[in-house]
């Protein structure tokens, strides 16, 4: 088990119903893709937020990463939709 801080933004935050949380992750969660699969087992709100995994963007310690990125050592993992600033 490892502990990680998760932060959510935009409609990912709204659908999950919270902006941040700290979770204990099972030992078989190695990558962002594993994390998304794990979160979707936690309830309907996570399933709704992460239904279309291909559009979900991720950042580890405030840097963009791909879904294959290992999460070992991450302090903060962010999940959010495609960005619409500017």
């Amino acid at each position, binding site marked *: 088990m490892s502990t990680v801080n998760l932060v959510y933004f*935009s409609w990912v935050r709204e659908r999950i119903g919270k902006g941040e949380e700290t979770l204990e992750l099972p030992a078989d969660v190695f990558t962002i893709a594993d994390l998304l699969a794990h979160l979707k087992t936690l309830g309907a709100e996570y399933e709704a937020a992460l239904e279309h995994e291909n559009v979900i963007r991720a*950042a580890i310690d405030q840097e*963009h990463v791909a879904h294959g990125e290992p999460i070992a050592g991450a302090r903060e993992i*962010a999940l*959010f939709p*495609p*960005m*619409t*600033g*500017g």
Partner: protein
Amino acid sequence: MAAPITVRVQLEDFDLAAEVSALRRGRTDIGAVVSFSGLCRNEAGALNALELEHYPGMAEAEIRRICHEAVTRFDLQGATAIHRFGRIAPGENIVLVIAASPHRQAAFDGANFIMDFLKTSAPFWKKEHHADGSAGEWVSARDVDDAARERWED
């Protein structure tokens, strides 16, 4: 001298003229300054305001990374990028980018590059609030913005 990079993510408005002056202050080697202002626009009177959410910390860091890349790639003499968050009414400023260089082309390209990457990789999200008071939608990302970024990748 090292090219100064100024990045701010803020609630309050900015002053274009003041930011250009700050970038130029004490320098006589700059030959071109290009600025871009992005505004909140009202389409058909239906919008009451945009709400801009951001990822504190990463928003600044990501814009700074983009500005560093632009300064290196186009040999800019300085770059400024300011992005607002919170509730922004139609007609108000959202974003400002300024690029300075000895000749015009690098300044145009630098400002263009910074905006193209800022739109697709700086962690901001816009939500619409309608004039009739109804709950708005999150603005969808546009393929045309991805295409604008990809044209720099060669």
